[in-house]
């Protein structure tokens, strides 16, 4: 009997609880970053603090539109907001800072230990 060529049937996927859970902070941050203008704003305030007016001046959109973007970024935990009188200042919250620090905590001590060994070997050889 010749085998009939037929597409394998897929089991119908069951709907799991995971599809209806609350968005994680990462989900919220990712959704905030999907919008290119918000990414551009984040680039602007990475490493320096700027007032809302100055941020808006960089873009060809209305001030309320920029404020709305800043609100989304703030709710996503990607920028911090500081009020100084009537002005609001924004700065990118360094998300990757913890990871960078964790890396440096392994990177530098290992490097300095290697330096120590070499410097002491040279010092011994010099006596």
């Amino acid at each position: 009997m010749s085998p009939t060529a037929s597409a394998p049937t897929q089991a119908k996927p069951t709907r799991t609880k995971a599809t209806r859970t609350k968005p994680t902070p990462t989900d919220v941050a990712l959704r905030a970053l999907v919008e290119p203008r918000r990414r551009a704003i984040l680039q602007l305030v990475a490493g320096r603090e700027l007032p809302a007016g100055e941020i808006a001046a960089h873009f060809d959109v209305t001030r309320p539109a920029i404020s709305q973007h800043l609100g989304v970024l703030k709710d996503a935990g990607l920028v911090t907001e500081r009020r100084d009188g009537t002005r609001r200042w924004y700065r990118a919250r360094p998300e990757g800072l913890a990871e960078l620090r964790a890396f440096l905590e392994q990177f530098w001590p290992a490097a300095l230990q290697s330096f120590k060994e070499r410097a002491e070997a040279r010092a011994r050889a010099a006596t």
Partner: protein
Amino acid sequence: MPADEKLADTVYRCEVTVDAPIDLAFEVFTDGFDSWWPRDHHIGAVDMAEAIIEPRRGGKWYERGVDGSTCEWGSVLAWDPPRHLAVAWHLNGEFQYDPDPQRASRVDIRFSEDGPGRTTVRLEHSELDRHGPSWPQLYEGVGSANGWPLTLECFKARLHRT
């Protein structure tokens, strides 16, 4: 920006004391950079042949690969033998070279005598937030054991101790 706004965790510090006089310590650190820099502390796609700090302010800090290719890490900001060396760290959150000095962090290395024939070397890696938010880590951190970008295969393999 007011001083109190500066995030304390944007500075990393560590130090080591060596049984070597200060002039020798500085010389080994700089002139002898390649003689001690860990061979797996590099970013190039090929194995590193040599690690170099050019001995002057404005000099380059870089690696040369076994195939002759070079990868820059940064530049020399201060050169004051035997007490002070500072370099700009131009590697971003994905460990790629970013030429913009505004987005580089700073590493200060200070040498001080700790008695005859002994030197304390203090390292301060500051302005870490200039590298900006590391977006790849938002995408790739989830599910990754230590949260580092997946592009860092070289470092990850070596530094992820089992």
